[in-house]
């Protein structure tokens, strides 16, 4: 009877040891799954940052192009006006040059 009791206890101890082994394996699986999830999150975040960076760059480039184009158009219009003004004043300017050239001014 004592022998049977000891045998039973040893069996239960063995079950307990197996249970702990199972626990260790489960812990390893849980940690591995967490690691995988972290890697996934990191990769996803990297992709998202990359996408956002491209969006930001494109947005500012577009804004820059738009404003630069406006400045360019305004400058061209201004240049046209300046040319027209200068053309209408050219005769006066030529007379000014001649006056200075001839010592009359």
């Amino acid at each position, binding site marked *: 009877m004592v022998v049977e*009791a000891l045998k*039973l*206890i040893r069996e*239960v*101890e063995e079950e*307990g040891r197996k*249970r*702990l082994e*199972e*626990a*260790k394996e*489960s*812990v390893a699986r*849980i*940690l591995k799954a*967490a690691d995988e*999830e*972290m890697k996934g*999150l*990191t990769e996803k*975040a990297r992709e998202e*940052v990359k996408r*956002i*960076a491209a969006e*930001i*760059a494109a*947005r*500012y*480039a577009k*804004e*820059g*192009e738009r*404003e*630069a*184009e406006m*400045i*360019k158009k*305004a*400058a*061209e219009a*201004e*240049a046209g006006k*300046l*040319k027209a003004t*200068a*053309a*209408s*004043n*050219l005769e006066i*300017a*030529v*007379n*000014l*040059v*001649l006056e*200075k*050239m*001839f*010592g*009359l001014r």
Partner: protein
Amino acid sequence: MVHMGTNEIVEKIKGEANAEYERMISEANENAKKKLEEVRKELELQKKRFIEADERKGVEEKERMIRAARQHARKLKWMVEEEMIEKAFEAAMKRIKEVKRAGFKGKSYQNILAGLIMDGTRSIAAEGSEAAELEVLLSEEDVAYLNHSLLKEIANKISQDNGVKLQLSLSDERVKSAGGVIVRRKDGKIEVNHTFEQRMARFSTGLREDIVKTLFSRR
């Protein structure tokens, strides 16, 4: 002393093993959850920093584009100014022939030359010598506009005005110029160059400013 039966011992061992199992799993889950939370927070922070940096880069790029456009605009304006100043100079040089033929603002070309000779002679007379022999150099084309009596008249007037004795004659030497004169002492020590090209070069800076004001003022 408390004695346990076999069943009690078995249950105790089972209970302890189960409790340890539960504790280990629970702790692992807790750790995993905590680590994931930390990673999420860190990634959010990094994302925020990257976006801020990208925003700064974007603004800089936009400002660079605007600066370049403004620079281009300034260059365009400068080019128009230069083009029109050049046109004014070219047109003035072309008009000289017409002035030689028809005069300018009621003055004949001979009068204009006389004025320049007078100015050059006065400048040399102002240098202080009591008597001086001066000569006038002209281009081949302009010789026809000058005569001995005009030179004598100018010399007499300045001699009287300045209390000096001046003699003015036409040099045999010719200058290559669109017009104007060179007045110089016969010993070559003093010379006043009033050729149009030299006058333009001399007055260039101030004259360009005046031309710009004239050309681009809205009337």
